[in-house]
């Protein structure tokens, strides 16, 4: 239908027919040629693996011994205590970490955005810095800082007269260590996103509210929060997806321990796929994870996006 666009047709009609046709053909093929690299790499390295993984989750064995297994991998999953432990750990980390981090990020953004504050650019730069570090580097760094006997954090606690915390050896504190690491790493990123959102709110709204006698808290809840709704939604969904896929941090910091307290769904998937080479089962875990991610994402968008 686009070929009938009136603007292009008359000019082309004047050209000799053979050249015209070739030029037209070239013009029609051009967008597909431009898209070819993307579509080929997408098809081979994204679409194919996604479909293959689904099929693989319905098989058992590997190589020539691969057999059709129907839904048995998924049934096994439901009865696998270790999978539920991994899912539970991931959920425990998620419900503490995401709200904590986002609240802190919002507070930081409002602070940095305040006209009362000096050297705002410096604080913005400072809190954003951790985002740049890789998760492996962060994990190694935290393993040293949180070392039970000699780590700087426990030494500092001792200085303050507080007891040492067994960060990496106690199930509860090991999960807290992951929460701490994630919060340190991503708070600045979210704060900068909120900051951009805050700067898009018209000043007149606040001025009008002040004329009407609204205090700072009232202004925050009636103007700032509603205006940030799309940005909040974006960060909630993104952090949830990210935390559900948690892998690098526990892999480096705790290796899933102690006693599987920080084993995450992604780590369990990795163990099954690349340590036990049970590709069918690993694929079933991957699809279970995809299902959880999409259901949670859809619920969040429903809850938060509705009133827009």
């Amino acid at each position, binding site marked *: 239908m686009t070929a009938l*666009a009136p603007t292009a047709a008359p000019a082309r009609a004047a050209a000799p027919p053979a050249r015209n046709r070739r030029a037209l053909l070239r013009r029609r093929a051009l967008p*597909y040629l*431009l*898209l070819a*690299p*993307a*579509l080929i*790499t*997408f098809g*081979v*390295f*994204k679409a*194919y*693996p*996604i479909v293959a*993984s689904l099929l693989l989750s319905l098989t058992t064995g590997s190589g020539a011994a691969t057999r059709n297994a129907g839904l048995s991998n998924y049934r096994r999953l439901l009865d696998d205590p270790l999978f539920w432990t991994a899912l539970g750990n991931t959920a425990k980390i998620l419900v503490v970490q995401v709200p904590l981090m986002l609240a802190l990020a919002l507070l*930081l953004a409002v*602070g940095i955005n305040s006209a*009362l*504050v000096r050297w705002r650019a*410096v604080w913005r730069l*400072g*809190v*954003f*810095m*951790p985002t740049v*570090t*890789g*998760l*492996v*580097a962060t*994990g*190694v*760094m935290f*393993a*040293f*800082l949180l070392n039970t006997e*000699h780590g700087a954090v426990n*030494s500092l606690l001792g200085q303050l007269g507080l007891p040492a915390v067994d960060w990496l050896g106690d199930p509860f504190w090991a999960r807290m260590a992951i929460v701490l690491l994630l919060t*340190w790493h991503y*708070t600045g990123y979210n704060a*900068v*996103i909120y900051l951009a*959102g805050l700067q898009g709110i018209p000043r007149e709204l606040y001025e009008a509210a002040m004329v009407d006698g609204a205090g700072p808290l009232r202004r925050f809840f009636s103007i700032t929060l509603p205006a940030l709704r799309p940005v909040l939604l*974006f*960060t909630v969904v993104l952090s949830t*997806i990210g935390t559900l896929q948690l*892998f*690098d941090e526990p892999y*480096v910091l705790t290796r899933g321990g102690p006693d599987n307290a920080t084993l995450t769904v*992604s780590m369990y*998937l*990795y163990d099954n796929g*690349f340590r036990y080479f049970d*590709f069918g089962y690993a*694929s079933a875990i991957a*699809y279970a*994870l*995809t299902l959880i*991610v999409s259901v949670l994402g859809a619920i969040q968008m429903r809850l938060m996006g509705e009133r827009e």
Partner: protein
Amino acid sequence: MSSRTNRLRGWPLTLGLAAVAGLSVGPFYWLAVAATQKDADIFAWPPALLPGGSLGDNLERLEAKIGLGRVLVNSLVVAGVQTAGALVVALLAGYAFAKFRFPGRGILFALLLSTLVVPEQVMLVPLFEMMMSFGILDSYQAVILPGLCVPFAIFLMRQALSGMPDELLDAARVDGAGEIRVLFGVVVPVMRPVLAALAIFLFLGSWNQFVWPLIALRSPEMHTLPVALATLHGMKADTDYGAILAGTALSTVPLMVLFLVLQRQFISGLLAGATKG
């Protein structure tokens, strides 16, 4: 309210922000200093505040353990090629989506974006089998190829190019420029800031990627820096803290430098997804 009371009221807030910024930057400073200490001094309390003289020793031992030079080259090749490749793929696709109308445009774009919600983990097993059957497991290609199509980058390029006036392109076409000339002579120069932001963003992701390289790169001499560091750190028998921390510091240095030099583009690159999405 006079400006003086305002200024006074601002101080607690400023101090609070300084404290948070300190907590954010503090660990980096600790890392930078610790990387230059002797093993025995790394856990000293109170911690050293000034760099020591052992950085060279630490790096030398790291070279002996993981082949630091080789590992750095691996990381640079993978991140460099992947960034350049993904940038070109995204530029071409973004240009097609933004500036051409063709059958299938909407569906193809939706298809590309739909994979944003699929966790990376889903692709690991089939990718591993694929690379094995291609016979390129444990090679640069195995790591680079799956990272060439970045749907988010395509999305970003399409958004940026949609804002570019068509008249600019048409003027060049009327002057007789071929489509390739239009793209590289007109589009690319105008889009340079966006391309720079995207390049940094892609490099960051590529330099730090971990799970897939961990799976695809089996032999130590092919490891990238994060994989080598995680492997070294995971060997509980090896307690050469100085070497590990020197390597960790080294893995963050290129990013810090890039970040400090190009902060504006950096932040806008990361923000693009949030504010336009």
